[in-house]
Every structure is written in C-alpha cells, then in structure tokens.
C-alpha cells in the first residue's frame, strides 16, 4: 500500500495562525488564547505548514496540517492507530525531509512492529518493576536534594530538575556507575542540542554536535548489551540482549535507536515537569502548603496536576491512513494530523478553570502522557515515582526554597521548556 503523504491541499478553515515562528515565540498562556478560540469555534482546523525559513514549503512539499485541539478528539486520534499512523509519515509536526533524522525507535512504528518492541521494554516499566527500583529512585533523590541544602543561589533546572531523570534512565538501562555521568551528559546534550542552539560550543554544527552525542550513546549501549549477552542482569540492556526478532538478535542500529528514545523520552519530559511544578508552587504557596500537610495522601493527585499543568510535550503528529471525519472536518488519506496536548490539557470542557494550578483535582483525564492507545507514555509510572521522590525531598529538606527571578523560557513547538530558573535554597 502506497499512500502519498502531506501533499493534499485544503482551504484554510479559520484565519488563526498557529504556523508562524511568531506564534511559537509567544509563551504558553499567550498561545493558548488562540488554542482556546479554536477549541470553542473550530476544534479541528486546517493550517499552513509550520514555518521554517531553513526549509521552505517548496523544498519540503508539505501542504499543511489539521490541528486537533480538544481532549476528547486527541484521545480519539490516539486510540485509533489504524487510522492515524506513526510509521507512515513520522511524528514530527515540523516538516522534515525524508531521512533527515533516523526514526525515533518504536515511537515511529505502528503495530505489529511497534508491539514487538514495546513488549521487550514493557517488563521494565510495569508498576511492579517501578516499585522494585523505587528505593534507588529515592536514594538518588535524597542525594540530589541533600547536595542543595545550604547551597544558597541555584539554577533549578541544572542543579535540581535535570539531575534525577537521566540517572534513572541510566540505572534502568543498566549503565554502570562509572559511565553514568558520561551517559547522562550525552543524553542531556542530545536533547539540549535539539531544543536549544545555545548549548552548542561555538563553531560546532548541529549535525556534528548531535552526531557526537549519538556516538557516545551508541558506544555505551552496544558495549552494554553485548556484555549482558554473557552476564545477564535485571535491566533493560539484558532485555535487549535477549530479544530476538524472527530468530535474529537486535542490530547495533536498533540498540542505538532504543538508547536514543530512552534518553529523549525519559529525560527532558520529567525535567521540565519538575521545573514548572517548582515555579507553580512558588507562585501558589497555598498549593505547596496543601501538599505538605498530607504529602503521602495527596502526592498522587498532585503529580497528575504537575503533568497536566506542565504539559511538557506540546504535540505529536500522525498521518491519516484513510479518509476520516473528525470535528466536522473531512480529513483525507495522507494528511498530517497534529494532536496538541498543550491545548487538550487546557480544555475547558474537561477542566474547570483550566489555567489554575490546582493539586486537588485528583485523577483527571489529562493528556500529559498522551491520549491513550499504543503510544501512551511507557514511562508514566516511572515519571510519577521520580516526581514523588523528588518533591518529598524538596518539601521536607528545602522548605524555604524560593524562586528569585523570572524563568528563562525555551521557545519551540515541541517542548514546554524552562532553560534557567534562579532560586535560593535558604
């Protein structure tokens, strides 16, 4: 079956702009004024492709995209992977040229390929598996926060939020303690390099910078998996070592792509959620007090709100495999369909006063881990365990933590990010 992707033209359905660089240079709240209008008046709407001066439409050839803005429609698209494919045209809202980046592992597959990959990983992410490594997560969180007691002025992102996730990814993969720092740094740079041009050393091109980080991740991953073939352990590397597809072992490329997915998906998402939650608790001290009053009883509900409110991943794209009607619009086979989690998580038909940071909302149908279905965040339980461990330490060991400046924001169409956040610990 050959389906032509992204070429179908459609008339614009509104005069709203969510395609320009100017739009994406606004902050989350400003952007949501447009999304709020779309949710109310045109929940599914056709737009010009995302603007990218380096890769104009006459080069990438994409006609545009459908924006899906309501939580319920995001769920519909997510649950129906037969109609909305991850493999066919990738998951990038930003138009790319074919082969520009390697596929992001099983995130860019559909069942049944996706299912085989996901099953290799799933043992490491079940609630019971997460419970087994919880002690390690807590130990790491205690160490990170202890180091900050009495530290004075800190950068929340670098000194606090970014530390735990990459260490835990390394622990889960089975990276040895001596390589954990190298691994974590490469992972951080890979993400940072993609999201933020400022972290690259001067004179180093993006492909070279990314390539170097990928090389480090690949070397560590391939060595580790090969070691686990003779010395099995209780980690993801062992699962990868044991995995066989049609009687053959995973190739080095396949191992690398899993390492890459892990370091991207397991890292920046939790980092950003941590930074935003620290900022929101600083701005809403009543919420901090409410949580501290009964941490064990309230943290589960609080963590759901951390993720909903932060919405660390703004969107993912799908490709329609057939003609389908959604939100009163006729989507055509081959069209790009972008599900805006950032909008779904502010959907006023689901969340009362959606911009309010309210830790007592309880378990809500937010789309912060995705809209459900086969691509729902595999690491959701792990992320919750990390946030629980970290905030327990923050609330008890850093009771006077105070944000001292405005957040320096990261502006792009993929991450809801904070680059720097100044704070004082005592």
């Amino acid at each position: 079956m050959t389906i032509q992707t992204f070429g179908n033209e459609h008339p614009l359905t509104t005069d709203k702009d969510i395609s320009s660089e100017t739009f994406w240079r606004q902050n989350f709240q400003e952007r949501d004024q447009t999304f709020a209008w779309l949710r109310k008046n045109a929940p599914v709407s056709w737009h010009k492709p995302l603007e990218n001066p380096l890769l104009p439409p006459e080069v990438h050839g994409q006609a545009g995209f459908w924006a899906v803005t309501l939580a319920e429609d995001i769920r519909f698209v997510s649950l129906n992977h037969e109609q909305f494919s991850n493999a066919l045209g990738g998951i990038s809202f930003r138009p790319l040229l074919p082969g520009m980046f390697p596929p992001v592992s099983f995130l860019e597959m559909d069942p049944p390929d996706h299912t085989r990959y996901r099953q290799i990983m799933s043992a490491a992410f079940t609630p019971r598996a997460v419970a087994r490594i919880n002690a390690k997560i807590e130990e790491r969180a205690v160490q990170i926060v202890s180091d900050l007691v009495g530290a004075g002025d800190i950068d929340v992102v670098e000194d606090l939020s970014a530390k735990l996730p990459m260490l835990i990814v390394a622990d889960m993969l089975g990276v040895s303690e001596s390589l954990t720092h190298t691994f974590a740094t490469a992972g951080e740079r890979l993400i940072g390099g993609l999201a933020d041009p400022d972290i690259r050393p001067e004179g180093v091109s993006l492909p070279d910078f990314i390539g170097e980080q990928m090389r480090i991740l690949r070397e560590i991953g391939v060595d580790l998996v090969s070691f686990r073939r003779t010395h099995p352990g209780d980690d993801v590397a062992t699962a990868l070592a044991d995995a066989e597809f049609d009687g053959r072992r995973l190739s080095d490329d396949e191992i690398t792509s899993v390492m890459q997915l892990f370091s991207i998906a397991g890292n920046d998402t939790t980092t950003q959620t941590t930074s935003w939650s620290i900022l929101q608790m600083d701005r809403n001290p009543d919420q901090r007090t409410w949580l501290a009053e009964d941490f064990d009883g309230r943290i589960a509900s609080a963590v759901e709100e951390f993720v909903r409110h932060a919405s660390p991943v703004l969107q993912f794209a799908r490709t329609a495999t057939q003609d389908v009607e959604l939100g009163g619009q006729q989507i055509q086979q081959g069209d790009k369909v972008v599900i805006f989690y950032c909008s779904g998580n502010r959907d006023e038909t689901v969340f009362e006063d959606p911009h309010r940071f309210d830790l007592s909302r309880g378990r809500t149908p937010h789309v912060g881990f995705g809209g459900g279905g086969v691509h729902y965040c595999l690491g959701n339980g792990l992320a919750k365990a990390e946030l629980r461990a970290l905030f327990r330490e923050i609330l008890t060991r850093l009771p006077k933590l105070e944000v001292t400046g405005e957040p320096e924001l990261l502006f792009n169409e993929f991450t809801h990010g904070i680059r720097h956040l100044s704070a004082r610990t005592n």
Partner: protein
Amino acid sequence: MKVVVDRNRCTGIGICDSIAPDIFEVGDDGALIVHGDDFDSEQVAEAVRSCPARALSLKD
C-alpha cells in the same frame, strides 16, 4: 460484576494496577492479569474508568 479486558486494546500501561493492585497485575510480558472474578468496589470501577487505552469494562 466482572471485568472484561479487551486484549486488542490493552497495552499493559498499568494504571489499573496502580489503582487496584490486589485485582490487577501487569505481568512482565506486559499482559494484564485480573485476580478474582466478582467485583463490586469503587476502586475497581475507578480503575476501569481510568484506563487510558479504554481496554477495560464491567459486565454483570
């Protein structure tokens, strides 16, 4: 009430397991195991409602 698992939808995400661990267990292969067969608790109802894959339902 019985819990019905739609195996085509369930991906072993484990929200049910985290809400009602005595009843639901995601095995190491990612397959969901339901312990017992007659349920009448708000906890189980919540687990069914909360499934992000909409793979769970209750049946008399």
